């Protein structure tokens, strides 16, 4: 019916008119070649629309080395999208990395403590036991994750985790080969269990590569530290 047609489109128009409120901080990352190549992937990470761009076809070691700011390649498995994180500010030992379109991940010694811009973000995590557990590659510890529920109230998930090493693996990251110690973190909580993987550089303790669970909706993020 004509009435319903314009009526529905009027509602749609009004709803759309109402969504002009988003503002974003000025990106202060340098406009490097890497950034401009990846704009479409950033959009995909933010909205979750699958954008199957294969980073291995676009990145090269020369390109990575030319970046003035350290770079992490991040992939959200459940959303099939990739993005590039640039190192940003550091506060009390926690470093915040940011994408071109203002998604951030904050790390405590390589372990993700919070995310922003992914929707059901990890608001904050207590990972002190995880950091030491991974360094030891043995023992157990408790992790605490805070999320916001549908009413903007903090809900707390407490995960019991155990740590072990599965030995050394040779991992190639854009033509540099690393010999990394693979540490596995198995965590359990009533309702679900997860497994995080870390590939640790033995000399520095740095996580060259990791696969970390961010939350029930965002699922796992795969991270590769690209810069030498």
């Amino acid at each position, binding site marked *: 019916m004509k009435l319903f047609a314009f*009526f529905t489109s009027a509602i749609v128009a009004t709803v759309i008119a109402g969504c002009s409120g988003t503002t974003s901080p000025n990106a202060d990352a340098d406009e490097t070649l890497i950034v401009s190549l990846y704009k479409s992937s950033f959009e995909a990470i933010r909205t979750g629309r699958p954008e199957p761009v294969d980073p291995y076809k676009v990145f090269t070691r020369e390109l990575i080395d030319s970046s003035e700011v350290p770079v992490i390649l991040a992939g959200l498995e459940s959303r099939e999208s990739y993005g590039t994180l640039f190192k940003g500010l550091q506060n*009390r030992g926690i470093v915040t990395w940011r994408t071109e379109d203002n998604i951030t991940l904050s790390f405590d010694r390589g372990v993700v403590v919070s995310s922003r*811009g992914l929707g059901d973000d990890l608001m*904050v995590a207590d990972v002190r036991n995880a950091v030491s557990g991974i360094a030891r590659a043995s023992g157990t510890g408790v992790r605490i994750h805070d999320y916001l529920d549908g009413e903007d109230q903090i809900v707390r998930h407490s995960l019991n985790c155990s740590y072990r090493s599965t030995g050394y693996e040779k991992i190639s990251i854009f033509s540099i080969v690393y010999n990394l110690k693979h540490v596995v973190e198995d965590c359990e909580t009533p309702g679900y269990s997860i497994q995080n993987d870390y590939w640790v550089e033995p000399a520095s303790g740095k996580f060259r590569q990791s696969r970390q669970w961010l939350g029930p909706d965002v699922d796992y993020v795969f991270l590769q530290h690209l810069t030498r």
Partner: protein
Amino acid sequence: MVLQARAKKNAGACLVLGAAGILLLTTAPALRAEPRPTYTLYGTPGLIDMPTAQSAEDSEFGVNVSTFKGQVRNTLTFQITPRLSGSFRYSTIDNFTATGERLWDRSFDLRYRFLDETEYRPAMAIGLQDFVGTGVYSGEYLVATKSFGDRLTVTAGIGWGRLGSYNSFGSPFGPRPSSTPTTGGQANFGSWFRGPAAFFGGLSYEVNDKLTFKAEYSSDAYTRETTVGLPEDRLDRRSPINFGINYRYKPGIDIAASFVHGSEVAIGVNFSMNPRKPYRRGTTGAAPFAVKPRPSRQAEPEQWNQTWAENSEIRTALESATVSAFESDGLDLVALELSGTVARVQFRNLGYDALPQAIGHASRLLTALMPASIEVFKLEPVVQGIVPTTTTIRRSDVEALENAPNNSQLSFDRAKIAPGGSIAAETAPYVFPRLSWRISPDVATSFFDPDVPIRADLAILAEAKYDIAPGWSVTGAIRQTLIGNIDGGPSSNSVLQHVRTDANIYAQASGPVIARLTADYFFKPSETLYGHLSAGYFEQMFGGVSAELLWKPVNSRLALGAELSYVGQRDFDQRLGFQDYKVATGHVSAYYEFGNGFHGQVDVGRYLAGDVGATISLDREFKNGWRVGAFATKTNVSATDFGEGSFDKGIRLDIPLTWVLGKPTRREITTLLRPITRDGGARLNINNRLYEQVREYHQPTLENKWGRFWR
């Protein structure tokens, strides 16, 4: 008894709940021990036509459209508390009168589950169907439901009224007074549970998580549908047994198909959603600026020794930098007052539905902008040129807690919330005077006219606000209708002054109209008092002068207000002129936060038609901004003079757009649904009353939304 319903325009709705088609939102699957209840053709949890003692999930909202044999039922059901649910239904029955005319009817239901199911005891509920209104669907019931395992439920009950019309076993509570034709709209207390009673029952079986099978024995003889009306179109009720299946297409979307009365096929669709469970959790807005730790004293001694504060060039540069940074983050800096160690920041929140999120963003920006000696941030969000509260946060706490465990609770504990003061003497450049404007599409709606049940107008709305000085502003909106049919509505038969029932004539105005145009002065005489003076054209139908005073301490559950206005009814062309009718209208109001999610309001005073009485409103409010409520007004206008409906009542719904879109925005969808709009109990529509504006800056709203501080 039945009235041929001729409805009037429903004033004030801006977006319709029919947008449920767009709000195709899902509930998270509930963890239930018993099988999940499905909805009836009446849009309530139950079997096919018969109710059960089941309840939907607490705060679940159901929108149901069901039809069979010339009947269409559109029902909104809300689980008000875990035990109490209410429904509003707009339905049509064809072939209702002897000459085969169609009836349009509005009805309200209530159900209360007073006993929970245990291992050996069924759940039991008592219910009133169509208890306020003309009584077409009126019935009452007492029902018990027991589940066996996690698939099968069995229900048995006793019904009265319509639900006691088939195979009754007697009238346990005496005869049912026959309802005489009245203006309708009133609760027929004297009829409840009177008259013939009959048994009903049924079972439902959950075959798998998508399919449920239902069968029932119906005690509703459909007396009128089978005996009145043109013979060839009457319902042929061959059997009291109804069968149905419910198919769960997706969580939140159910499709039901039933074979009823042994002769008809019924189809129903049900959308359910729950304010506590948005489809998308969280928001995908941009990440906030990160905290920038201060340089050490050795590295930057000039920032620490406070002498920068005497340098006016530095202060001006700091102010400009803050203006730009705030603007890029959805905030608008109003004033910045700096001493050596304290930064007092007054700002407007433009981008965030949760004020604590704006405060959290401002705090982080300040860590990057302010010289190192500044240790205390006094954050003062501003609304209408006044400062309701001051939130004081130490910079060291912002730095320490940014990514610390439990930072949400800790940041709230360490923040100090106190009543606000006044706007600083020196405001940032370009804040006053300032013009802001917006052009957007606008929809007005009008429901329940039996000839055209949904009327709507699509218009362009141009709004502007000129902020002259702190508290002083001129605001207006011009509306140009593009296309619509509200002007075709029926003319008023009201015996009272047509304060609301000439909406169709107002809608006939051609050309651009002044939707509103007022000069406002907002002021805050003390820590707990707020005031608002206003003159101009407040709304489509009235203009004049108004004064409002509100007493609301920051931490109080109770607020008290008083409003007095002298207005005249505007000319139908809605330009600058007035009709002869003038009235002094005003109310004293009490607002109360019950603390468990419920909010009550009582207004006592004189309404636009000169009638005197009171309005009671009760809302269920959710911490994410959703509000569902109902209101009713009783004045000294008699039911006869009021006309159809007998007294003013309605339901209202507020949905924050952030919940729908998952992006930060302050806009919301507001809907007001009146089964009928008449002239009694009509209140002046002022869109910037104090309580709604001040609330979000006070407790408990600040604490309720503090989870967003670090977002």
